[in-house]
């Protein structure tokens, strides 16, 4: 049984989301801080997610913290930053063995104490974070930012968005940039930390098997936040009509070209056209039944991977494929041709049915993974969307072909990005 309780306001801007289910071996606690995605703080938020787990007041080193977590049946503690549209999310996640399966009765309570230590009770030396920790993590973050290029597929995907949204906050890389990183000191980071914990909207999601009253009590007792003046994050601007196609090429010493196309859909996720758009993308390049897979991979043998996906908050449609360098023109025109066919309505009722089934399967499947459940309800919360899973499924089911064609009409190509081989002349 999966039971989702009505969100509880612990404080004005701290919401607790309880998802009760007895099917997992573990309990999960996720804490999300919502920040605006902004150049001034994106790098600091990333660094903060790395410095906090380095030490807390009662666990002054990573080693001490790791030992405590290991002793607690290998409790997993993770902290990270992501972007959801133009929101920068700083998140902490703790997964713990459920007491039922181990010889211990207070795993969850003990785990929450550690989680609280890491978030709310950092290790402070002379009024700020420990210099050594900050400096080491600055170096690690620099390696991470520079290391973006190591994963070519993701790099090309991110770079396409960066070029397309170059004048919008959405272009920001969630791990920040080297120039801003250089200027961060322990003092400035600590000041930023104070700002984050006092001014961010906070959401807590707990997923697992527990008594709901007890868990509410436990969260209120163990997690001691210090919220003051909370600043809400604004909805991003999404309407853009590109006046010309922005073509960007970049060189790297690689064996396979990475082609990415970025489109503006101009369809907000709140609109009734959003579900038709999701179906459009799925029929176009959602999986092995898609137009891309059948025509560009299977018929033309042009690639191994090719996909299309929708970015919900920012209303983008993103296409990606790995191809031979010399097949650039052919691939671009084939991708465009598939979209033209879509817009002309050249797809069958079976294609629609398959796409609907595939989307519904993914929606349902989320309920089998604790962190996906937590992320799902969190995303719903920040989208002010109260649809249940069943309502979401219903909305997908009800989409008609004419709506999918209609959705296609507002999709406009903005940017073509191609990562190609160094010195290759096309």
């Amino acid at each position, binding site marked *: 049984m999966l039971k989702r309780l009505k969100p509880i306001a612990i404080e004005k801007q701290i919401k607790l989301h309880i998802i009760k289910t007895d099917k997992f071996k573990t309990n999960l606690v996720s804490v999300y801080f919502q920040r605006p995605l902004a150049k001034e703080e994106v790098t600091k938020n990333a660094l903060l997610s790395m410095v906090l787990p380095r030490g807390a007041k009662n666990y002054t080193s990573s080693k001490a913290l790791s030992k405590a977590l290991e002793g607690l049946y290998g409790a997993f503690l993770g902290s990270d930053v992501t972007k959801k549209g133009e929101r920068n999310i700083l998140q902490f996640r703790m997964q713990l063995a459920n007491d*039922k399966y181990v010889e211990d009765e207070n795993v969850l309570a003990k785990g929450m104490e550690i989680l609280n230590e890491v978030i709310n009770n950092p290790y402070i030396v002379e009024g700020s974070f420990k210099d050594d920790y900050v400096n080491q993590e600055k*170096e690690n973050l620099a390696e991470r930012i520079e290391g973006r290029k190591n994963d070519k597929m993701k790099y090309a995907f991110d770079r396409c968005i960066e070029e397309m949204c170059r004048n919008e906050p959405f272009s920001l890389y969630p791990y920040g940039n080297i120039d801003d990183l250089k200027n961060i000191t322990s003092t400035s980071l600590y000041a930023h930390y104070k700002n984050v914990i006092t001014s961010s909207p906070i959401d807590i999601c707990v997923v697992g098997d527990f008594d709901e009253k007890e868990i509410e009590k436990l969260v209120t007792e163990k997690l001691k936040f210090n919220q003051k003046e909370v600043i809400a994050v604004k909805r991003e601007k999404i309407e853009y009509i590109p006046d010309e196609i922005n073509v960007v090429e970049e060189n790297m010493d690689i064996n396979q070209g990475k082609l990415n196309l970025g489109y503006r859909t101009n369809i907000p996720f709140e609109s009734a056209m959003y579900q038709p758009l999701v179906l459009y993308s799925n029929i176009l390049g959602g999986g092995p039944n898609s137009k891309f897979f059948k025509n560009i991979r299977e018929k033309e043998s042009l690639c191994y991977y090719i996909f299309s996906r929708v970015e919900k908050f920012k209303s983008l449609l993103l296409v990606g494929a790995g191809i031979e360098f010399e097949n650039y023109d052919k691939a671009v025109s084939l991708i465009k041709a598939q979209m033209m066919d879509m817009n002309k309505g050249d797809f069958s009722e079976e294609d629609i049915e398959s796409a609907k089934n595939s989307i519904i399967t993914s929606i349902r499947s989320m309920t089998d993974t604790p962190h996906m459940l937590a992320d799902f309800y969190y995303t719903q919360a920040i989208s002010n969307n109260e649809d249940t899973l069943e309502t979401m499924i219903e909305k997908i089911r009800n989409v008609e072909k004419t709506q999918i064609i209609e959705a296609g009409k507002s999709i406009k190509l903005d940017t073509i990005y191609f990562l190609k081989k160094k010195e290759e002349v096309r």
Partner: protein
Amino acid sequence: MTMQTIENKVLKEKMFLKELPNGLKVIFMPKEGYTKQYAIFATNYGSNESQFIIPGEKDITKVPDGIAHFLEHKLFEEPEGSIFDKFSELGSNVNAYTNFTSTCYLFSSTDRFYENLELLINFVQSPYFTDENVEKEKGIIGQEIKMYEDNPNWKVFFNGLKAMYHDYPVKIDIAGTVESISKITKEDLYKCYNTFYDPSNMIVFVVGDVDCDKVCSIVEKNQKKKEKLENKIERIYPVEPDRIVQSIIEEKLDVSIPLFNIAFKDIDNDLSVDKILRKDIATKILLDLLFGKSSDLYTSLYEEGLINDTFENEYTGEVEYGYSMLGGESKNPKKVLEKVLAYIEEIKSTGLNEADFERIKSKQIGEHLSYYNSVEFIATTFVSYYFKGINIFDYLKALKEIEFETVQKRFHAHFCEERCVLSIISPK
């Protein structure tokens, strides 16, 4: 044949096993309350099978590198087109993977499970290869190979294997090379198919909130006409020397920072099933003890900026071979190796700490429990252990029972400098 039931009281899970007359093994694990159903149809045949004797023949057959993986791609093709369409209609996701020892076909669904299951079994058991469709696949797999060539993590891993193994086929790329796959013909594919896709060499594993009897009756009915091979498959593996090929292997790629992999080659192979399991567990505990986040070595490497949080370790223990690996990104991989080896020497004289051992053990118990949250994990892990002769339900018990002394012995036997290699991918 009768059904065997295995219950694990700690995990609070059950499993049902049945062998059909044609040798196919069917295993079902109920997962009440789960929305997803997951099934794998797997053959004990992977990229390591590069030489074998076809039942009924005398001579050794040698096949082109990458053929098991090529076969995996081609099984999705049916005379009436691709099988993907049919799974898509049902809204399920079908996929497959090939590794060193197995090829696995799988789907996950949330609806119409039994139809999906029949579809899975039927398509894997109906090969349809033509000269044309084999040729067409070469372009697609060629792009898959090129994608991996640009993947530094994959390269650093494989180069490590190449530095360890002289002859054993684990050193050969699973997908082969553009050159090796160009030679593959439909006849080669049928040869491999007929040899290794015999029901007696295969298992069906199902996990989810579905009916056990119905799963069995569907598979049984489906398999009635499929006969067993009379002869046993003879797999031929080269004799692999204990020594490594080279202690350092280095390649340049367009990366920002060097990636490295330090590997220790196992020599203690060909063991009985429970010894393999104990070796597996002991090595995994050791890796956490020596190189995990709470170890002295991790702390000093991290604080000196020699490693970052990409630093990870893993152990692979197959029946015929095994290795430990630790790696990640580092400004100075050679320095990391030096410190790793010095640390091992130091522990060899000072000894392992028993309290640390107990703590790591309880950590791994908790982690093992959490794996049972995921039906994908259960299914893929079940298959890989099953082909080694191990049932994953035995893992937790063996983990709880493992003794400090076993781990100490394993430490001295496994972590030896002369069987250690360093693989580096450095920036161009």
